[in-house]
């Protein structure tokens, strides 16, 4: 019995909880990609770097707050800085839209052109981030690190295996639930939210119904910038902030959006968790887990790891390919909000 419990705690500690928080970060990122795709109708490759941009300002503001001796108690100071960084990122996104994307929108350029333009925006944003804060790896987490420590858990339960719950994991999951709930409420219940869905569904008919396209575009960037900054900050708090990581996280985020059905917000959330769980499940070494469960004679010799963690991006890619082969529209039929 205690072997079974030990095995489950082991999985919870190394697989379930980390995947849940990583999945939440991907879900928030994928939501931004999916909103841009659904409403503005292009694949925004600059999204990862928009996340980096927002996170960078959060870090700078965190340092500023810390230099004044302000902190957020047991919570990370970055959460105090986050709203201000979101505002800066929104302004940045709106400026980029006004001076870059709008030009192509008025010309009614094809989506491929938009995607190429977004790659340009990606490089510029990336450069801005590296110039301002540099390419180095930075940790900006402060406050209480653990909610439950391994030792405490062991003492409490008397089990061999410990369960550690990091505060960043709890923060990530609760903020994600909060934001996703607000976003869905906004899209389903409010007039502006409905007009965004209508615009995404059928642009011509939305125009004929008197929906103002400029307002829809502005609201989209508002939401996307807020989601991107939050996703970036949560990821950075959990791991660390490095501009290059934020560039490469674009792959699992796009995979999540496409797997869920690009353009579908619920799909983006589900896709985020699908990608996170598969990445971690495939690269986790199950040796200890089987030692607990199997009789001694059957104990595994190797690590029982399907793939080395170096290949975790290959996992998102493979899932992407499989989904595109089996169900090209994604788990939830994509295309509209």
């Amino acid at each position, binding site marked *: 019995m205690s072997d079974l419990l030990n095995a489950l705690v082991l999985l919870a500690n190394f697989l379930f909880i980390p995947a849940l928080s990583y999945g939440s970060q991907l879900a928030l990122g994928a939501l931004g990609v999916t909103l841009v795709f659904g409403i503005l109708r292009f694949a925004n490759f600059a999204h990862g770097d928009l996340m980096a941009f927002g996170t960078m300002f959060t870090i700078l503001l965190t340092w500023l707050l810390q230099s004044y001796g302000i902190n957020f108690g047991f919570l990370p100071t970055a959460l105090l800085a986050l709203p201000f960084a979101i505002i800066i990122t929104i302004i940045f996104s709106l400026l980029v839209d006004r001076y870059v994307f709008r030009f192509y929108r008025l010309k009614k350029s094809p989506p491929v052109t938009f995607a190429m333009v977004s790659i340009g925006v990606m490089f510029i944003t990336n450069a801005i981030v590296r110039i301002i804060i540099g390419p180095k790896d930075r940790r900006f987490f402060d406050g209480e690190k653990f909610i439950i420590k391994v030792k405490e858990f062991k003492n409490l339960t008397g089990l061999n295996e410990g369960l550690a719950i990091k505060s960043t994991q709890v923060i990530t999951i609760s903020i994600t639930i909060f934001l996703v709930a607000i976003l869905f409420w906004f899209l389903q219940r409010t007039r502006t939210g409905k007009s965004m869905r209508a615009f995404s569904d059928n642009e011509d008919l939305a125009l004929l*119904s*008197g929906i103002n396209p400029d307002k829809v575009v502005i609201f989209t960037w508002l939401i996307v910038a807020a989601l991107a900054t939050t996703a970036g900050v949560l990821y950075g708090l959990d791991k660390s902030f490095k501009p290059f990581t934020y560039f490469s996280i674009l792959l699992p985020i796009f995979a999540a959006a496409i797997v869920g059905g690009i353009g579908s917000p619920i799909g983006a959330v589900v896709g985020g968790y699908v990608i996170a769980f598969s990445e971690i499940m495939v690269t986790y070494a199950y040796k200890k887990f089987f030692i607990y469960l199997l009789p001694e004679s059957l104990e595994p010799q190797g690590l029982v790891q399907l793939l080395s963690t170096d290949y975790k991006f290959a996992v998102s890619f493979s899932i992407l390919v499989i989904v595109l082969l089996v169900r090209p529209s994604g788990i939830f039929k994509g295309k509209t909000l």
Partner: protein
Amino acid sequence: MSYFFGKNMTGGYGGVDIIKNCTLEVKKGEIVVVIGPNGAGKSTAMKAMLGMLNLKKGIVKFKDKDITMMTPQDRVKLGIAFVPQTKNVFTGMTVEENLEMGAFLRNDNIHQTIDQVYDLFPVLKEKRKQTAGELSGGQRQQVAFGRAMMTMPTLLMLDEPTAGVSPIVMDELFKRIIEVGKTGVAIIMVEQNAKQALSIANRGYVLVNGENRRDGSGQELLNNPDVRKSFLGG
């Protein structure tokens, strides 16, 4: 005194003129039907009157106001509603949300108008929580029609409202169109089902190759041997 007219309209997409010197007009409370062979420019003429086409020549007036240069959105604000032939509903949204979006420009209470639409099309009330994409072709046409009614238009433009629906649904739709016409809304529609459409119309136009070929009251056109031979199947 005309309520809404487009006079000597010439234009098309790209370089080719699809409509040439085409003139259509609707009077208040009238139902006007535009018929003609495929490719005659019927839909294009409608789009020209809605402002979805750049006219090289001609003038469009609504309530004595020159609206030739107005965008379609601004014309909608004046009280002109348009039901496109295809893609005329928000497929991913519920029936009720479709109606709400139709009333997007209004700031007053829209529930009364929604109830009126439900009275007109009782089946929509039943299905109000379903997404429009799940409905049958005829029901979708009703949603599209209802969405346009939500702006409380004084002029309704319909592009083939009965395209692709069964004869029973078609009769039903025409009945509703008459009902709406009786409330004082001017209606101009393009129709393939020429015989039925002309029989409910006050006036009709026959377009051929983008030009006016003939016009007259619905009955006149129905009785005209040429029109009978060409468009009504003898």
